[in-house]
């Protein structure tokens, strides 16, 4: 019975730590990862024909990245 009580207390404490301290950074990391995978996918698709991605495209993508990250955070309910 004591073990069950401690386990329940532990789970509640874990959820509190996660919600208060770790949820926000996790979502931010998730969004960064998502955008980087999308950009990497484009860079790989360009290489299919033996080319490297063009600097103009790279510069344009860099201007899109912060906007995409912001949209992702808004969709996840972190950045309002």
């Amino acid at each position, binding site marked *: 019975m004591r073990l069950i009580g401690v386990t329940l207390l*532990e789970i509640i404490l874990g959820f509190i730590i996660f919600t208060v301290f770790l949820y926000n950074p996790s979502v931010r990391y998730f969004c960064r990862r998502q955008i980087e995978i999308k950009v990497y996918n484009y860079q790989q698709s360009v290489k*299919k024909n033996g080319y490297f*991605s063009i600097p103009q495209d790279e510069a344009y993508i860099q201007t899109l990245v912060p906007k995409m990250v912001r949209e992702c955070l808004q969709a996840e309910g972190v950045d309002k």
Partner: protein
Amino acid sequence: MKWSREPAKIKTSRLRFNNHRFARRIMTHLQLSNMNLKTQISLLIYLVLYAVMLGFSLSSLIILKPFLYTENNESYIICNDTSRFEIGPNFIFAFENKLDPVNDAKARKLCQYKIISDYSNVYETPKNTNYKFYPVLKQESSWANAIFIFFIMVNIAAICIEFIANRLLTVSDDFRFGKVFTNLIKDLCG
């Protein structure tokens, strides 16, 4: 001014009293009052370590949760003259289900003049849309992956915490819920 402050003071003291009663109830329920200070602190460290571990494991669920992305290698456009072009290899990209204005212009020029990488705008962009975009969506990661990593993290962290508890902490076996994980590993290893 005095009138407005007094109710707030009463509220705070009630809250403290209630918290105190709650803490006492937990202590009575878990029979913590019978322990000495060293054991109580050991138990507290043990609980905090597990709570932090659980928090980080839950974070892995968020970080590895699945999402859809447009596969630029396989997505394509079909022009009004029925010619078909894959977007990525032709320097057109989509991060969503549709093309943004810059890539829309590239697609229009590709369909109209059959040219790519006209970054200096030698050709005029056609005024009307002359293609249809067919995105191919793919899923990155999955809930099964995320849950698998969650359990791996919980197990590895539990083994580390139990190792620390064995060496440095004096936690009674009645509270060692983490032993489930170490026993499981022992059983699996024979």
